[in-house]
């Protein structure tokens, strides 16, 4: 009974919205808004074909490579910069400035430097996604608990072991907050780099549909991007729950006390 009620809460509003959409497109056909049935049909037709391999998979591949590289660079750089105080003071204002640059303006810059290539698109994603991870890692490394740090020092834990067992775990909540930001940024940059300069990929295809007034196809492209965003968000939430299980538990104990 309880599960049924939860299911009702989860499904009621989406079902209602789809019904509303269906009802409002029932009579006169609006050029801009396809009916749900037409959209589903076009969706299957458009995306479950050769386009899946020629446009969707390469886009997702670039996104993954870019985001993973950005996270790696951000975490490694952040740990190094965060643990050396003069380095942090030296670089922080410059890095803050780079973070403040809206990442999409890097598309024309990198296009100029690297030409319209796959590596340019990956470079766009990396150069946009790296800042939230990098700056959050620096912040997290800096805020390592002083007592823990001193204890580790007393026990002679240093070098890699210190990073692995002290610095990374205590910075991980901050790091993951940065990763969450860069994931959504990465998706945006993937689409923009393809809309701006490309002849393949999701972003390009959707703009192409729009320019040729293939409205239901365009909507189906929007749905693909939405599904991609939702999937990434679910994967991230799952990963965060596993990585930060200890942290959420600790917070609960602290809040209860």
């Amino acid at each position: 009974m309880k599960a049924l009620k939860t299911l009702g809460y989860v499904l009621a509003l989406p079902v209602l919205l789809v019904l509303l959409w269906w009802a409002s497109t029932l009579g006169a056909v609006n050029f801009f808004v396809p009916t749900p049935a037409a959209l589903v049909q076009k969706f299957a037709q458009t995306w479950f074909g050769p386009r899946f391999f020629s446009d969707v998979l390469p886009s997702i591949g670039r996104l993954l490579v870019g985001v993973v590289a950005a996270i790696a660079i951000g975490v490694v750089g952040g740990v190094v910069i965060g643990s050396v105080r003069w380095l942090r003071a030296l670089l922080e204002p410059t890095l803050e400035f780079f973070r403040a640059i809206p990442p999409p303006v890097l598309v024309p810059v990198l296009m100029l430097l690297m030409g319209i290539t796959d590596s340019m698109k990956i470079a766009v994603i990396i150069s946009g996604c790296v800042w939230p991870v990098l700056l959050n890692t620096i912040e997290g490394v800096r805020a390592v608990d002083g007592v823990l740090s001193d204890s580790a020092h007393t026990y002679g834990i240093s070098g890699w072991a210190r990073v692995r067992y002290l610095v990374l775990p205590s910075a991980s909540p901050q790091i993951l907050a940065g990763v969450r930001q860069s994931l959504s940024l990465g998706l945006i940059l993937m689409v923009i780099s393809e809309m701006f300069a490309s002849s393949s990929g999701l972003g390009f295809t959707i703009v192409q549909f729009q320019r040729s007034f293939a409205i239901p196809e365009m909507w189906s492209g929007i749905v693909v991007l939405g599904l991609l965003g939702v999937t990434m968000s679910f994967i991230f939430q799952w990963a965060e729950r596993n990585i930060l299980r200890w942290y959420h538990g600790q917070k609960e104990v602290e809040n209860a006390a």
Partner: protein
Amino acid sequence: MSADALATGGRTTRAGRGRRTGKRAFPGQRLLGLAGILGFLATWELIPRLGLIDAKYLPPASEVVMALVRDLGLTAFWVSVGETMKAWFLGLVLAIVLAVVLGFVIGSSTFLRRATNSTVEFLRPIPSVALIPLAVLLFGVKLESSLMLITYAAFWQVLIQVLYGVADVDMVANNTAKTYGLGPLARIRYVVFPTALPYLMTGVRLAATVALVLAITAELVIGSPGLGREIALAQSGGAISGMYALVLATGLIGVVINALMRLIEKKTLSWHSSVRSEVIL
């Protein structure tokens, strides 16, 4: 001078005991930061001068800074800045108003919160750039398409924070207010709103950054008037140092917006313990 020396002395003894004592700046930190910026500019200057990257594609820093200074004296530049800031501000305000109203309505009822949760979680991660084609079809190359993208992106940032904030209301405080005969509106004003305000301000700060990104994106990709379009035009027109100058300008705007939002947050939350404790410690 002597006070400065004293502060330095006090700092070194503190630093000797525990290196990671927190956020306080040490003397010379600003200087070091300035050196970092200068070092970055010097590296930038040297890379094209030494021929590592062709100066045609990456002009030396001095040239770009000069171009930026020249821009600062041009009316056309300030008009584009004005267009970008107008889109940013209107979109942000629209998003905040919508999110606050909806957030308080949804947040104050458990039923609504549970019923909308799945929809919110589904709609939120949809990247707003996915709406670019739709915006172009509906509004064309105009301010409205920028506004649609900016509002969509900024709305979720604020809504989520408001929902958290409203859910965070202390039940004892709320029940006490009820006992003292405060009506629903008065409770929203005196109990719920102050609780949710810190969350709201966090949401607004995040939304301000996102709104700038989307404003520039819309101009860059759709071509609505503003700095983003100028960048695209400069790039395709071969005005390379002009393009880099505009990129620098967007970065400076970003820095100003960040600083402004932090200031507003500090002012509006000056009563809140999270801000007050920073002052006391």
